[in-house]
């Protein structure tokens, strides 16, 4: 039988040395940002029941979830997302905790992506959720934290983009097109105006609401988007939502470089789940969003608790790590200062010597080679500057540039 014991499954990879250090650093950076702003960590199991991810307000497409069957025959998944497990916790164990809740997580999610597309199936995500807070203040807090995360990426090209899917939902209702939702949503999401026009003409949708829906995907850019949208939505209830978004935009522009804040009213991803603002973070070095978030006021209610206002986002740590490595981020010099080789009969002294060096603040390694020759060549190969041989008369050998001085 063919054996696959030498490779990792597609979409996964081993991380070695510097990659680990940079990955942990990126994770720690976000952890520091979140904890210093008053967020508490939660860790959820990698295994969850399928049902957690399979209801109307939180549907994940079946085919992107890795599934297993437990000993009782129940369907389980390896978590494709962290927000739904957190909503589950909020609806159950945290039901009676003081609101607002400010939670953060830093854990892997798993998605069965189309093969050979160069996408990660295993992604480390760090993110926050604010539950039970007032809308305006919570939206602003989430956005300003997202901006902080983006600014922490050493990239000159950074954008935080905000939108709101209530425009899209409202127009769809007005046009009574909710049955065609998925097709229309994907056409708006891909900014496919010509095809959307054809589609709307086909189903006989016309008039001002159809025109608004058609123009939605083109409404992106800077401040000018708001004046265009004001004209387009004049006299409809959508102006209230637009005002909310404009206020957020204005406050964000006071806090951040204005060029870094953009708007896209055509953001309509996960429409069954987001119920208000949607936002994304981009950096120039990566071809997909590295931050994705939004408001999801009906999710917790779908777990049998009362509906609670909630907003959050997740940052893609894999992407941030790759960009940092590409930008030449070097792991801090992790070289060993001293290699300690103990001759037979002096093993305990060797261990003790090593400990003393470490206690004095050096990095010391107890040599596990079988003889001095091996120890020397090991020190040369690993670029260790000093070798200490522990014996009756302990001697120190200095290597410079790998040469025996």
């Amino acid at each position, binding site marked *: 039988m063919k054996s696959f014991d030498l490779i990792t499954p597609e979409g996964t990879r081993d991380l070695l040395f510097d990659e680990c250090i940079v990955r942990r650093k990126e994770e720690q950076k976000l952890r520091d940002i979140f904890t210093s702003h008053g967020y508490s960590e939660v860790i959820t199991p990698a295994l969850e029941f399928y049902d957690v991810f399979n209801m109307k307000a939180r549907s994940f497409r079946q085919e992107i979830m890795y599934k297993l069957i437990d000993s009782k025959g129940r369907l389980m998944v390896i978590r494709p997302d962290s927000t739904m497990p957190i909503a589950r916790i909020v609806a159950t164990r945290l039901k009676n905790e003081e609101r607002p809740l400010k939670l953060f997580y830093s854990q892997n999610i798993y998605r069965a992506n*189309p093969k050979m597309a160069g996408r990660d199936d295993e992604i480390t995500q760090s993110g926050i959720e604010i539950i039970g807070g007032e809308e305006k203040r919570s939206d602003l807090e989430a956005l300003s934290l997202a901006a902080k995360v983006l600014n922490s990426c050493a990239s*000159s090209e950074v954008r935080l983009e905000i939108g709101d899917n209530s425009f899209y939902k409202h127009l769809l209702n007005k046009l009574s097109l909710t049955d065609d939702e998925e097709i229309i949503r994907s056409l708006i999401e891909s900014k496919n105006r010509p095809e959307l026009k054809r589609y709307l003409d086909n189903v006989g949708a016309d008039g001002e609401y159809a025109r608004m829906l058609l123009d939605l995907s083109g409404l*992106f850019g800077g401040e000018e988007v708001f004046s265009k949208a004001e004209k387009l939505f004049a006299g409809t209830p959508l102006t209230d939502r637009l005002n909310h978004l404009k206020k957020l935009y204005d406050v964000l522009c006071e806090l951040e470089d204005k060029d870094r804040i953009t708007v896209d009213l055509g953001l309509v991803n996960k429409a069954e789940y987001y119920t208000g603002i949607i936002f994304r973070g981009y950096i*120039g070095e990566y*071809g*997909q969003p590295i931050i994705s978030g939004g408001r999801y006021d009906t999710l917790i209610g779908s777990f049998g608790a009362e509906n609670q206002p909630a907003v959050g986002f997740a940052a893609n740590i894999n992407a941030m790590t790759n960009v940092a490595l590409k930008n030449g981020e070097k792991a801090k010099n992790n070289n060993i200062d001293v290699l300690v080789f103990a001759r037979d009969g002096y093993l305990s002294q060797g261990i003790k010597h090593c400990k003393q060096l470490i206690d004095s603040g050096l990095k010391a390694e107890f040599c596990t080679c079988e003889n001095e020759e091996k120890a020397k060549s090991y020190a040369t190969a690993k670029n260790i500057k000093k070798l200490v041989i522990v014996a009756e008369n302990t001697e120190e050998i200095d290597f410079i540039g790998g040469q025996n001085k």
Partner: protein
Amino acid sequence: MSERKTIRIALTKGRLEKDTVGLFEKIGYDVTLLRDKGRKLILEIPGADIEVVLAKAADVITYVEHGVCDMGVVGKDTIDEHGGRFFEICDLGFGRCRFALAGKKGHNFYEGIGVKTIATKYPNVTRRFFEAKGMDVDIVKIEGSVELAPLLGLSDGIVDIVETGTTLKENGLEVFEDVSPISARVIVNPVSMKLKKEKIETLISQMENNL
């Protein structure tokens, strides 16, 4: 990517490439290097901030999705078959043809209760088409001339690109039903669209105005 200020556009080699280069010429770009390209795969448009990459259709999508190319020109057939995360901004109108279900002339495809076998180069398009009808079919992927499959008795029908229908006719086949229209599309990486909005929108409106 961040260092690159130019717009990099991937063109599908062959007819779409030729039509797009023609379009660039009409806009007023200097296309001599694009015409006289030899075996080069990355080409410049002198005096413009545009770099042209030549690739196979499916690769255009891959390069754009990963953001190593900002934009691409690719047929709707490839988009429908491969999907992906990108913006599909405009329909260039050339490269026009259609996906169709075809089979032996005079044959009633929907007759009978047996599961039909369909030969195609586009299994995803085919699956979606029959899924929408709630119909179970066996799909056989064929790499070359799909017309052979029903003639040799391997399949009840084919789903393939049909332009004029001449090949079908010459082999005693006919179109049973249209599946979807095809033409050349401009696709854009979602991050590039946001970071290089002005340049990309300028190029797209130049293209649209010269169709």
